């Protein structure tokens, strides 16, 4: 239990028990978040990045269940806490921003009502004090005329403004750790730039740590200190952001970087063949082997362990030495 980590996730497994079979959405995921840093969880559809966040906060929807693992937040194990104890963490010590503000804000309640709910769930505070706190926070996230707009309903705001309100709600109680799940995926690029800038500023100002979930390698490059690359429920590579981009040692990370177009240079796009696998019938051995250009017999038979190849750089691949 090192003190420099605010969050330690160990061997987390979350499965969904559906009629069609067991979906192994998160299958043995481990990573750490250093205090004050931003960790990016990057992966495509079905890589398990959102479910990882849900599992840590213990808000996995049914039929999902956390089957195994440990989550230490400030050294305290969260998965063994009672629901009552867990509530003291959600929204208070750990905040969360969801992808779609249209569905994360309740259309039937005004901004004041919704954000007051968040405060009174954790603090004994008068209505007036709560109101002042909300207005202050709305101003911080850049909502113009916060003292009037506090009475407004979500539909009266544009989507960018709604996401700012969702950020305000997540930060109301000064959380130590913030989960941001694709916070800008539904936004236009110029609005995305505003929101990312806001998140970065507030994170530094409020001395938070952040877990940023995204599929956009550009956002990862700009926002994070460390990166966890996920594929089909497994950790494929962990390293600091520079290393991930300069010296990726997992073929999937390498392929992912080669496949995304870049704004600043014209390059040949190298597609990854095939599709993201079905999580019910996962490929044998390494889950990426049917799409991997380095795959050999061993990849079909054995699942590669996550090895520490350099201090802080973890790779799950039988062939990482060949990529070096």
């Amino acid at each position: 239990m090192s003190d420099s980590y605010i969050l330690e996730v160990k061997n987390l497994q979350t499965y969904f028990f559906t009629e069609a079979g067991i979906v192994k959405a998160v299958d043995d995921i481990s990573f750490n978040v250093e205090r004050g840093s931003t960790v990016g969880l990057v992966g495509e559809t079905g890589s398990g990045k959102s479910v990882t966040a849900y599992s840590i906060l213990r808000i996995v929807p049914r039929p999902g269940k956390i089957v195994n693992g440990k989550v230490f937040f400030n050294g305290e194990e969260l998965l063994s806490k009672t629901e009552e104890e867990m509530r003291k963490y959600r929204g208070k010590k750990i905040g969360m921003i969801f992808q779609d503000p249209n569905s994360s804000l309740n259309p039937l309640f005004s901004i004041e009502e919704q954000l007051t709910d968040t405060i009174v769930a954790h603090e004994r505070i008068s209505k007036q004090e709560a109101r002042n706190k909300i207005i202050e926070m709305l101003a911080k996230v850049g909502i113009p005329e916060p003292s009037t707009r506090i009475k407004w309903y979500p539909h009266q705001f544009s989507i960018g403004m709604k996401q700012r309100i969702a950020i305000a709600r997540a930060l109301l109680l000064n959380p130590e750790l913030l989960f941001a799940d694709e916070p800008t995926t539904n936004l236009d690029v110029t609005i995305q730039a505003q929101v990312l800038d806001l998140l970065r500023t507030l994170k530094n100002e409020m001395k938070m740590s952040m877990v940023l979930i995204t599929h956009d390698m550009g956002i990862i490059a700009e926002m994070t200190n460390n990166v966890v690359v996920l594929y089909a429920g497994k950790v494929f590579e962990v390293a600091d952001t520079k290393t991930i981009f300069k010296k990726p040692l997992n073929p999937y990370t390498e392929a992912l970087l080669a496949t995304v177009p870049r704004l600043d240079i014209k390059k040949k796009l190298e597609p990854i063949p095939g599709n993201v696998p079905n999580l019910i019938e996962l490929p044998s051995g390494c889950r990426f082997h049917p799409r991997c250009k380095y795959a050999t017999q061993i990849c079909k038979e054995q699942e590669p362990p996550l090895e520490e190849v350099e201090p802080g750089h973890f790779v799950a691949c039988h062939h990482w030495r060949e990529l070096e």
Partner: protein
Amino acid sequence: MNGQENGNHLLEVYNLVKYYPVYSRGIILRRVVGYVHAVDKVTLYIDEGKTLGLVGESGSGKTTTGKAILHLEWPTAGQVFFEGANVSEVLKSKDKKQILKIRKSMQMIFQNPYGSLDPRMTVFDIIAEPLKLHGHYSKEEINERVYKLLEMVGLEAYHAERYPHEFSGGQRQRIGIARALAVEPKIIIADEPVSSLDVSVRAQILNLLMNLQKENKLSLLYISHDLSSVRQICDHVAVMYLGKIVETANVEDLFSKPLHPYTQALLSAVPIPDPELKRRRIILHGEVPSAINPPPGCRFHTRCPYAKEVCKNKEPELREVEKNHFVACHLV
């Protein structure tokens, strides 16, 4: 992009306008109280075998422009010429042969491969439908063509008897592309063809589009908000803001030397996957104004960091600043 070059291009669009009426509340006394200026005097052209990228944020009118060119949305004003023929007039005439000919030459690929394929038709029927509609194909010819198209887009022959729900997003988009190619069009309007796909699958579809374009000498209007992909596949780019084209140039000029303040901000806002790259970011304040009452003068002046008095009063014309580089800004 200037009107003088009349008749030299495969597709020419002049002053295309599409307004949508906005009604007052009520049932009996519903009046038109305004118009959404979705597309406002857009002029563009595409040459044979070339790709024009139409970029802009949501609400900029790029999709409506695409649909209005095809007359899926009938334009309020303006002209579209395809191979010199006025599309509106041909479609209004009773000449069925000409109508089919023009419809056949211009096809569309839609954004959402989950909504654009009929779930109750097999892949074979989906791809064969345009062939049947346009006639003149025997059963054997249709058969042969469908299997050839499947091969062209990288699907297997046995996929023909399956239904859309059995496919992944990327495969569905391949089916959509095969359907668009079925009647051998000359131009394809691709409306955000990869935006709903996983990142690892996007490059497959983009490369497929580029290869098919080369093989079939297709022209392409590529509508997208993803500037990085536009850079990879387009020859020319037109940037739209609130129904207007604000800048257009060939792809290298636009990306290396953007002149309009909006283009500059847009390009600087796109995250680049390189953590060591340091660049100046222009953060635009505010949001895209409503298209019902667009700001007077330059539509971008409310968010423009350089706006002067003239920008509020006078609408800037699209003018040629450098060779083939057109900008609508007073200050350039």
